[in-house]
């Protein structure tokens, strides 16, 4: 396990290095007009040059890159340049993370509990009402663009229940709809996969054997089938929990939730190199850590998996 972890850690660091370097270089390929936004028109060439020089964009590229790595290693993610000039990147991010985290966790909790329950109900009642209902729901969520029903929920449900349309930190009831909206997609996928794995397991020989042995249906379900069916889903759980801090772009912007949603998109548009780099660094680290934890979790759930044995990881 330890050997495997170290190997993975080194691999991860290398991956991170590659991603961050590529993003760093790509940012430098963008047209320089982006750094000025609407003010471009008002500046003359000399002023633009002065500003670009002060941003460090006139240094040779390798020098910029080395500076960038030096700063990362000392824990300095730099100051925003166009999004909120001169404000430390960390200050911008740290105010937003909690909101995304709370909403994300609530949504994951809701998708997991409702989705898994629905999946089990579907598998148990194959081709009966719950199965048909669940399938219909899954098809709907997968086929209709999320923006459509998100907007519908916000415009009409709030109207019916006289709820405010915008999030207000002081009003708990404004939390309800965003969380519901955020979990709709998750419910569909958890239900779909749960149903599929459960149905697979139900037809396996060990279930037939257990039944033949006279074990109660409930205990087979909980002790064997559910556990086995949940293993493949467990792998992605840590990553999805960690990724909640990235926020949900559409929901957050729809309800004016001050989270991280869309921040990356926004700062790319504004060409705020420091922020883009910092966010990419954070998101990539989350992804890498999440996958690693997923592997560990799977090993815990499924004792057959031995991470140190060659070729046994997957």
């Amino acid at each position, binding site marked *: 396990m330890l050997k495997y972890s170290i190997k993975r850690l080194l691999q991860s660091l290398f991956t991170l290095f590659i991603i961050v370097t590529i993003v760093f270089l790509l940012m430098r390929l963008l*047209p320089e*007009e*982006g750094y000025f*936004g*609407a*003010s*471009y*028109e*008002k*500046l*003359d060439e000399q*002023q633009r040059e*002065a*500003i670009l020089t*002060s941003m460090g964009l006139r240094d040779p590229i390798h020098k910029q890159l080395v500076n960038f790595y030096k700063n990362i290693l000392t824990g300095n993610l730099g100051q925003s340049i*166009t*999004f*909120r*000039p*001169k*404000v430390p990147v960390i200050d*911008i991010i740290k*105010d*937003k993370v909690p909101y995304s985290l709370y909403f994300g966790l609530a949504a994951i909790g809701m998708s997991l509990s409702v989705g898994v329950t629905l999946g089990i109900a579907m598998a148990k009642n194959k081709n009966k*009402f719950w199965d048909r*209902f669940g399938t219909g729901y899954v098809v709907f969520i997968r086929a209709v663009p999320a923006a459509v029903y998100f*907007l519908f929920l*916000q*415009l009409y449900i709030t*109207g*019916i*229940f*006289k*709820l*405010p*349309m*915008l999030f207000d930190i002081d009003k708990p*009831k404004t939390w*309800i709809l965003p969380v519901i909206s955020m979990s709709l997609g998750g419910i569909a996928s958890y239900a779909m996969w749960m149903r599929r794995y459960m149905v697979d397991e139900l037809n396996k020989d060990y279930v037939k054997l257990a039944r033949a042995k006279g074990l109660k249906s409930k205990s087979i379900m909980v002790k064997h089938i559910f556990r086995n069916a949940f293993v493949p889903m467990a792998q992605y759980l840590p990553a999805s929990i960690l990724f909640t801090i990235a926020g949900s772009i559409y929901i957050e*912007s*729809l*309800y*004016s939730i*001050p989270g991280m949603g*869309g*921040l990356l998109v*926004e700062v790319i548009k*504004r060409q705020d190199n420091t922020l883009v780099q910092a966010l990419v660094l954070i998101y990539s680290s989350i992804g890498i850590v999440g996958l690693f934890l997923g592997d560990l979790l799977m090993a815990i759930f499924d004792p057959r998996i031995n991470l140190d044995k060659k070729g046994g990881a997957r």
Partner: protein
Amino acid sequence: MKRLMALMLAIMMVLAGCSKGKTDKTLGNEGELVEYSEVYSGEITTLNYLVTANYNEFALAANMVDSLIDYDKYGVLIPGLATEWESSEDGLVWTLKIREGVKWLTYDGKEYAETKAKDFVDAAKYLLDPNNESLTANIFYSVIKNAEEYYNGEIDDFEQVGVKAVDDYTLEYTLKQNTPYFLSMLNYVCFLPVNGDFLEEVGDRFGTDNTNVLYNGAYIMETFEPQTRRILTKNEQYWDKDNIFIDKIKETYNQEAATLAPELFLRGEIDYAEIPASLIEEWMKDSTKKDLVRPIRTTFYTYFYALNFDPKFDAEYEPDNWKIAVNNVNFRKSLFHGLDRKAAMTTAEPYDPEQRLANTITPKSFVDIDGVDYTELGGLKEFANTDSFNEELAKEYRDKAMAELEGKAKFPVIVYMPYNSGGTELANRVQVIEQQLENLLGKDYIDIQIDPKPPTNFLSEVRRSGKYAFLESNWGPDYADPETYTDPFTPGSNYNFPEFVEGYTDANGDKTYTNLTNKAKAEILDIDKRYELFAEAEAFLIKEAFVIPYALGGGGYAAGRLDPFESQYSPFGVSSQRYKGQHLMEKPMNTEEYKAALETWKKERAEALKKQ
């Protein structure tokens, strides 16, 4: 299925139980509305008003910090932080008396210092330090003596820069040269004051958030949460607080603001919403909604169709042929009179397209001489009140052009018309124009080729590099003088490069338009004459069909509780963005009320201008 229904019903009841009715509006002591809220999608990046050149950021600065001069609701110049002023005989030295007792407050309402003349000097010092990267420094140093030299490091003694605090309440500006519109510039952000001690205290953090600025204006920013909300509250110690009628302004960020605002307005959650063109028909058909919506006032942004005299576009669109055609005045006039601007405008304003059309480059009501509008002066008058669209004339000029260009240009002339594909309105408009012009003038005469271009870098890729034949362009004023509207067309500018036109060269070797504008710019003592000369120059530009004036900025429709005619009126600077002086109406204005109010306002304005 029954179980499901029961479950749904139960959820609905729980949710319904959680909520009350509509949120009550906050009322003042006498029962009037005192809290204003709106949603916005364009987030600001800084509160540092000495650095920014962004319109949204001006709006906040305007309400937080006062300027030396101000404008009333008719556009008459009134005292602000300066109570009185005078200029020397030669117009070079301006002495302003600073209002006494105006306090600088911190974000939590604590008194920091008094606003004094030195604050304007400190602001200039900050502005002229290139390290601070002010985007408006150039406007400041374009008029103030030695400011540009100091900015460029040619002199390092700030004493030589033309700004001085004679004593605590006397400020003196020395200008490079007599600038007739100098006073109007004092309303711009680069002339706002800053407290030097505070600036030193917060250093680099100045303006990064609401705690790192000082307030001496009508409002204090109590909350600043970027991408979330900002709350402005009335400054209880403001020198003119009797004229602030809104106690609190709450702005909530929402990326989908444009989509959600109309619905939020209907539900009473916000007090202002612009109604997009896609929704306006539905609102106009609904009797209750129709009563809530009114036109938005136009701005001083001016839109025009530019004919390019230095075409650099791809060979497939035949730039050389275009060059021959565009140098023929009759060809230009055939387009000038052939363009049905009203038809074009219906793509943006289907109900009342004429209210947004402009027949001149300088908009009406921009400046005036004793109540006579600039556009009514000299040769400009002829164009100001006539629609350029005239089918007969267009065909007449077409025939003349075809005869004159025979053997020289190839017909049909390809009119290469790229456009910014970022918005649907413009995409519709260019198609309307293509069809309309081709049908009127004939496809054997012109072949308009429209070309959608990505919004990113549109201006540098298309207009500035001359890669167009015919293009919708715009320009906004930088100060209250007609000179500002000549900028796009002077040599070295990058709009339509009229310096490359064939002919029109005067004896001194310069182009006629250049000479006309130079003559006007040189007239700095007699303002009447100056305006007449600029009007002549502009009339020349239009008469020779170098450009086709098209429309004004702004416009569209909105539902809102603010009375648009109570806001301060100024063509330039930050006054018009102030909430000071505005009340919240119980019921929004509808279109009829708006039109009536506009007429009344126009009359009152004419009176006010005569009296000033």
